[in-house]
Structure formats: structure tokens, C-alpha cells
């Protein structure tokens, strides 16, 4: 019994002595942190998505106070957060237009041709390593959902056609899905962009036709029918929209023979 008491007392005393020493050290070695860092951190959504380019919300808060990061840097926070941070930092917040992720492929199981059946790890990166995932089109969406998994806001879901669909309400343009897609099919567009070419294939027309019923065959009908001169061009067998001048015209959607151009 005495051993137990002795053990408890001696270890307890040791703890107290060490804690006391640490408390003194804390007083002497305290690092002054700008109080604004705490306030900025409190204004952030706290998702730690990394969309700002910094490792986590606390790092972003530190860099905002240090002046390295713009007050509008937090995409998930949106306009609200930018304004709060601007108030804390004592600057004006410029309003940035909301952006959403757009997945530029409509080649689901109904439209795209399969060249093989893939048995393996069910992920886009993995499937791509093994013969392009069994899909004939080497540029198209594989449908295993690496983008779905990467979204920290639950904004992407797979539909029945095995294509991912972005919910524009939930999407905060953090950019995680852009990084996650191994075929680089996802782009961040301002909400003012309504018309898109849902294909990223650079194969020649006949090859695309064999692989997918909604792929761009570079027939140039859209280029000829665009209401504005040079609103659309074809670069490397793929139609490209010049968003500065090309309007979101229904004509382009109707005239496209493959139904690749759609308005969202």
C-alpha cells in the first residue's frame, strides 16, 4: 500500500514541477499572434478543402493577415465570407462572380461504345491505367466517380447513365474535382456561361462517331451558324466557344448534328 501511495505522490509531484516549469516557459517564450488571425479563421467555413491554395483554413487565415492571400480567396465561403474578412482586415471586398464546375462529357453508357469490360479497382485513375477503362473513346468520362469522392461539399452525384452531375447550388468551385478527374474533363466556369461543348475528344470525326453518339466530329456547322463572326472555332478536331463574343444561342444547339453543344 505504501508503494502505491509513494508512487502516486512522487509522480504527481513530478507532474506539478514540470507543469510549473512549462508555465514559466510559456510566459517567457510566448509568440505574439496577430488577433486578426483568430477572427479571420472564425469567418471561414472550416472545410479545409484547400481550394484557396493553402493547406487548410488556419493557413489561409494566417496568409490573409500577412497579406499574401486575397480576401476573396475562399471560394466555398463565397461573397459572405469575403465581406466578413474584408471588414476584419479593413479593406474593400471586390465581388467575384460565382463559379461552378462543369463536366464536359456526355458519353454515358447509352451514348459511348465500350471496347472491353473492366474488372478492377473501381476508380477512374485505376481504370485509366488498364487499357483506358474499357471505353473506346480515350478522352471521355470513365464514370467510376473519382470526382464524386473528391467533392467535399457533396455537390457531384452519378446519374443512371453513369455520368457525374454537378449541383450548382452546392458547388463552391473549390477545384477539387478539377484535380481529381484523370481525363481533365472538369472546368470551372462563371455562372454567366450557359452554352458548352460537351466533348473533349481530339480524335478525327469518323473515329469519334465510332466511339460515341454525342462526340464532337469537328464538322464546323457550329462555326458557320454562330450569330457572331468567329464566336466558335475548331481547334485540333474540337469545337471551342469564345465566351467573350459568342452568345448562348439555341441555333447552335439545334444545328449541332451530334447534339454535343448544349445549354445548361
Amino acid at each position, binding site marked *: 500500500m505504501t*508503494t502505491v501511495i*509513494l*508512487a502516486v505522490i*512522487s*509522480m504527481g509531484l*513530478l*507532474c506539478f514541477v*514540470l*507543469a510549473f*516549469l*512549462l508555465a514559466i*516557459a*510559456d510566459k517567457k*517564450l*510566448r*509568440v505574439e499572434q496577430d488577433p486578426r488571425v483568430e477572427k479571420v479563421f472564425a469567418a471561414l467555413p472550416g472545410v479545409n478543402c484547400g481550394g484557396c491554395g493553402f493547406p487548410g483554413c488556419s493557413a489561409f487565415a494566417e496568409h490573409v493577415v500577412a497579406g499574401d492571400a486575397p480576401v476573396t480567396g475562399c471560394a466555398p465561403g463565397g461573397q459572405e465570407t469575403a465581406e466578413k474578412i474584408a471588414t476584419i482586415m479593413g479593406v474593400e471586398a471586390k465581388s467575384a462572380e460565382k463559379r461552378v464546375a462543369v463536366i464536359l462529357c456526355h458519353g454515358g453508357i447509352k451514348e459511348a461504345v465500350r471496347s472491353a469490360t473492366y474488372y478492377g479497382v473501381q476508380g477512374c485513375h485505376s481504370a485509366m491505367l488498364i487499357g483506358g477503362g474499357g471505353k473506346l473513346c480515350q478522352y471521355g468520362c470513365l464514370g467510376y466517380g473519382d470526382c464524386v469522392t473528391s467533392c467535399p461539399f457533396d455537390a457531384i452525384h452519378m446519374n443512371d447513365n453513369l455520368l457525374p452531375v454537378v449541383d450548382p447550388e452546392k458547388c463552391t468551385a473549390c477545384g477539387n474535382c478539377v484535380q481529381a478527374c484523370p481525363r481533365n474533363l472538369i472546368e470551372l466556369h462563371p455562372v454567366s456561361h450557359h452554352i458548352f461543348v460537351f466533348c473533349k475528344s481530339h480524335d478525327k470525326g469518323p473515329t469519334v462517331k465510332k466511339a460515341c453518339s454525342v462526340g464532337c466530329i469537328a464538322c464546323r456547322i457550329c462555326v458557320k451558324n454562330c450569330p457572331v463572326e468567329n464566336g466558335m472555332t475548331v481547334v485540333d478536331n474540337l469545337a471551342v466557344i469564345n465566351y467573350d463574343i459568342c452568345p448562348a444561342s439555341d441555333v447552335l444547339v439545334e444545328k449541332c448534328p451530334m447534339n454535343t453543344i448544349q445549354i445548361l
Partner: protein
Amino acid sequence: MKDLIVIFISASILNNFVLSYFLGICPFIGVSNKIDSALGMGMAVTFVMSLTACISWLINHFILIGLNLPFLEYVAFILVIASLVQLVEMFIRKTAPALYQALGIYLPLITTNCAILGLALLGVLREHSLVENLFFGFGAGVGFTMALVIMAGIREELELADVPIPLRGAGITLITAGLLALSFMGFAGII
């Protein structure tokens, strides 16, 4: 005096804590990307090891043996190591913020580093005196720093080398560590 030199050389080169005893592999792999951070980490660990060697001997002699409580050595040593590392962390944060950022999470990880606890326990096992234990701890720290800096030097070169894709990163690092350990095995049996 000769004994002290022998203990120092044994702990630092002949029975290197990282390459012979395989203690402290976590910071060995984690912080050896650049020579600067490796050196900084090594110095922090050397400081902690030297102080731990002293304080753990004192605690062992006066509290544990004095009060006949040798079974408490794990508890007591971990208490001391944790406090010391916290102290070092505060000190580095104040004096060298760049080093603090570079070491990141590996600085508080010195606490759970088996090399430090191993040092304390080995000191008890070999029944060193206070001065012997101090030289043992300092030697271990110097050896740890040496191993880390050598590894960092090799890894900086490997960054520019044409490593096969499957082996890049952790793979080639572990292979290099194994080869380093093999070469240090040449010292076996000298002491």
C-alpha cells in the same frame, strides 16, 4: 575519460541509433528531404536527448531507485520527455520560426519518438553514471543528426536522378535507408 570517449563514439557511429538500432525512423524518413531541415531536426533531437539523458538519470537515481519504484520508469521518462519536447517546441517557435514551419508536425513527434525513450531506458539498463549517461545521450543525438544529414544529402541528389516510376518517393528512400544501414553494419563488433 577513455570510457566516455568510447561511449560517445559507440552511441554516435558504431551503434548508431537510427541505422543500427532502427529507432527514430519516423523523422528519419519524414524530415530528411532537405539538409537544412534535417540539420535543424537533428539539433533539436540532440538537445532533447542530452537533457533527457541527464534528467532521466536524476529521476531514476533519486525517485525511482531512492523510493524503490523501478516499475514507474516508463511513466516518469515519458513525462520528462514530453515536457522537454514542449519546451524545445516553444523555444524554436520563438527563435527560429522558419525552422518551426519546416519541421512542422515532426517536432512534437519527437515526444513519441522511440529513440528518446529508448535512450532513457538503455541508460537505465546499462547502469551508466550521470556523466556516462550524458555522453551517451549526446553521442546518440550526434549520431542521429549524422544519419539524418547523410540521408538528406542522398535524397537531395535522388531528386535529380532518374528513379523508376514505381520506386519514386517512399520506395527509393526505404531502399537507400536499408543500404545505409547495411554499410553501417560494417562497424559491428568493433566495440
